[in-house]
């Protein structure tokens, strides 16, 4: 069954905690994007909250560097699939704790530092489909705002998007379950047999 989550009103801590690894969720409302440069900037430069044009507290952060098109009405997302989350592992726990991010969307899962931060703060990691850039861009209904566009460029900037029926799967929850790690453990068993086996 697909759960529908509206992000327009901040979700209660209980609502975040109720999400379990394996849940298929459809997201609606606003999200922000952020990848390598945004993470580094947030953690190393520590900008004041009033310097960031939108509220990150309780927000969902999408690991995405979209292809954007500038039109007369503003920017539109042309292609916007997820990027590999693991690259920002060294910053993510601090971003979650210091800025109050409650949901991460990305691909490939993250490490133990992030998992601990999810558990402590009652947050979750969602995976969406890698390479499904056109499909996911169509679920971004509007570009509401952008931060650091001139300095970081359109790929690395932080975009504020309005999304509708954005499909994700909870793969790391606030109870310490990490589906990526479970699959890795299972595949390691078969891997060990294949490596140890005779030719």
């Amino acid at each position, binding site marked *: 069954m697909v759960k529908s989550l509206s992000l327009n009103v901040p979700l209660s801590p209980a609502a975040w905690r109720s999400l379990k690894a394996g849940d298929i969720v459809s997201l609606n409302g606003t999200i922000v994007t952020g990848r390598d440069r945004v993470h580094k900037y947030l953690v190393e430069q520590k900008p004041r909250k009033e310097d960031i044009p939108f509220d990150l507290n309780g927000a969902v952060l999408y690991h995405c560097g979209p*292809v954007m098109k500038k039109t007369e009405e503003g920017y539109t997302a042309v292609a916007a699939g997820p990027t590999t989350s693991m690259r920002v592992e060294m910053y993510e726990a601090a971003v979650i704790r210091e800025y109050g991010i409650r949901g991460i969307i990305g691909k490939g899962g993250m490490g133990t530092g992030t998992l601990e931060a999810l558990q402590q703060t009652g947050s979750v990691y969602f*995976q969406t489909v*890698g390479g499904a850039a056109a*499909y996911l861009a169509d679920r971004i209904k509007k570009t509401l705002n952008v931060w650091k566009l001139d300095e970081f460029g359109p790929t690395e900037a932080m975009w504020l998007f309005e999304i509708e029926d954005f499909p994700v799967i909870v793969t790391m929850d606030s109870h310490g379950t990490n589906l990526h790690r479970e699959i890795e453990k299972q595949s390691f068993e078969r891997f060990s047999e*294949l490596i140890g086996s005779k*030719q």
Partner: protein
Amino acid sequence: MLKLRDGIVELYKKVATSLPPDVREAMESGCARETEGSHAFSTLAVQIENMKLARETVRPICQDTGVPTFWLKVPMGLSQIEMKNTIIEATRLATEKIPLRPNAVDILTDKNSGDNTGIGFPIIYMEETRESSLTIDLMLKGAGCENAGQTYKLPVEELHAQRDLNGVRKCVLDTVQKIQGRGCPPYIVGVGIGATKDQVARLAKEQLMRRLNDINKAAELAALETRILQEINELGIGPMGLGGRTTALGVKIGVNHRHPASYFVDVAVSCWATRRGRLIW
């Protein structure tokens, strides 16, 4: 060179927005093997839907249009300098028109050039041909899977990998086991074996240009390709790493002669959105 430039822009468009038929078919048959309702099934279904949507609306399949990589076979008498300049010009145009994501970042200033050109960017490999027509092959693959690649120097003790084809097999499995779902599986895996690390890296990437139904001329390597593909799929990593039967769509191996003291193996990984195409001029 104006017409050739426009031909290359069209090649960019075709490659960025549609997958080759062999990859499309492999994705469909992968989906048919998965259990309906599983994460593997729904992930593949979205990927297949995205493939169709991108083609119909002429938009990039993936927002990461990678480091454009060209292989040219240039007829004798045609200037390679001219070819390179034409490709650079076409790259600027394609980036703006299609659009492609600008991916060329200056190492020293961290500035994005904004048009996918820069030092060594795009990558262009050229060789001369006795044929009268110019052949241009283009591959676009994102950084998620590019970062998944590994180079090995056999023997590798921890894998019990000796300097033989069985050792090669262990290296390939190790790469896939380590990367799990981070490089967007189902993968296509290119393997290069030979004397030096620069040479095997290029050779491995070239294997990704082979069609999935292309059978290796060396029977021993053809058998190894089939075996490794089957074993990767036994790992159960699945589409986007959430479990399933379809972890890879193909394994392609290329060999060069090696030095008696060296046995390099490079494993190049491509995501399911292996975008490749050819222009004959």
